[in-house]
């Protein structure tokens, strides 16, 4: 939509439309955008596009509709797996850290590049907790996953497709942590093997590499929020992006300035 600004009597100029993450997908890129602050995309039922009952604050969240053109809606695999809609000034998803997860369609065989991003507000940290993943397959480590670690650092993991042998997976863990009790935007831009950047609140963070040299496995798997292999997340989470591409600096800043 093109907006017009009135700058004087009878004078109008065209102004650019406000930036939205949906614009990232204008050239048909794969991925999804899950905006928990948008009441029109939250539903209680876990039936995706056919869900009918809006999920208000305090309700279980069975579906988040993808507002990218891909319609990669995420749904809970069971009633028990639904997180709760919370509101701390930001309307968000609050998974219970026990069994809550939302899963989207499979992205079979899609390799680099990928950007994963989400806003999180942790109350505390314990264990390795999945935030968002490109190729979730049960307890196996596939695709690219963004984790929150037990000390609040952020981990990007390239999964080798196996459920064991962690030395065969490539891990990138930031030296800095996300704070407790505050909303932080974490962004991982993954161009290829050992070629990535991790941002916390739009600041490029140094990271430590560990693990093996095996190629990341993109051989099938689903989009997932709040869980991937290592553990279910208890962190408040909002505005989650999975994007088969790399953000420009301007887009990353716009995503940050959009807020949680």
């Amino acid at each position, binding site marked *: 939509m093109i907006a017009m600004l009135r700058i004087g009597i009878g004078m109008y100029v065209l102004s650019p439309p406000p930036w939205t993450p949906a614009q990232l997908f204008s050239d048909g890129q794969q991925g999804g955008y899950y905006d928990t602050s948008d009441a029109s995309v939250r539903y209680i039922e876990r039936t995706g596009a056919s869900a009918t009952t809006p999920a208000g604050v305090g*309700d279980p969240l069975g579906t988040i509709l993808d507002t990218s053109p891909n319609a990669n809606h995420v749904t809970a695999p*069971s*009633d*028990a797996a639904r997180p709760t809609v919370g509101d701390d000034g930001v309307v968000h998803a609050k998974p219970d850290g*026990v*069994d809550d997860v939302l899963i989207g369609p499979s992205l079979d065989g899609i390799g680099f590049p990928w950007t994963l991003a989400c806003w999180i507000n942790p109350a505390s940290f314990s264990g390795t907790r999945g935030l968002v993943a490109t190729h979730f397959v049960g*307890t196996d480590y596939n695709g690219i996953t963004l984790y929150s670690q037990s000390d609040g650092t952020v981990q990007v993991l390239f999964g080798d497709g196996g459920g064991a042998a962690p030395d065969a997976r490539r891990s990138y863990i930031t030296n800095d942590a996300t704070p407790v009790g505050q909303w932080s935007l974490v962004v991982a831009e993954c161009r290829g093997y050992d070629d990535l950047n991790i941002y916390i609140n739009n600041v490029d963070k140094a990271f430590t590499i560990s693990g093996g040299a095996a190629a990341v496995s993109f051989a099938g798997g689903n989009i997932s929020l709040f869980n991937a292999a*290592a553990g279910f997340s208890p962190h408040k989470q909002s505005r989650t992006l999975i994007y088969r591409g790399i953000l420009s600096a301007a887009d990353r800043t716009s995503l940050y300035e959009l807020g949680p």
Partner: protein
Amino acid sequence: MTYPYAVSAIIPAAMRDDGDRLSWALGYQPDPSTGARTFVAALSSDGSEPATHYGYNAQAAAQDFVDILHAAKGGTLVPIDWEAYGLTEKRVKDLLQAMEVEVSSKDDWPWDALVDRLGLMTLRTEEA
């Protein structure tokens, strides 16, 4: 509809498949043959493998599940064609007898209390 309750339940690992079938029969999940499960939280006495128990933690819209459970523990099952869900009445009763449940308000998730009461720990898969 409001969701005032939180329900946590844990069953022995050997009953996990029947637990998921029961959840399917009650409309809480799809057919388990699709890969869907309700009992996904793996537990053991020291948090190491193998899992000896599985559980779930959920919001509940009303006391319907609790009422079903209490009735079942008293020997009365809701009228469901259990065999259509791969169950028998006896297996459902056995399952419900073995199921440990905690119910509380949603503001006070009962999961930790239930796990502590049973002397269990959540299985942690290896650090990623």
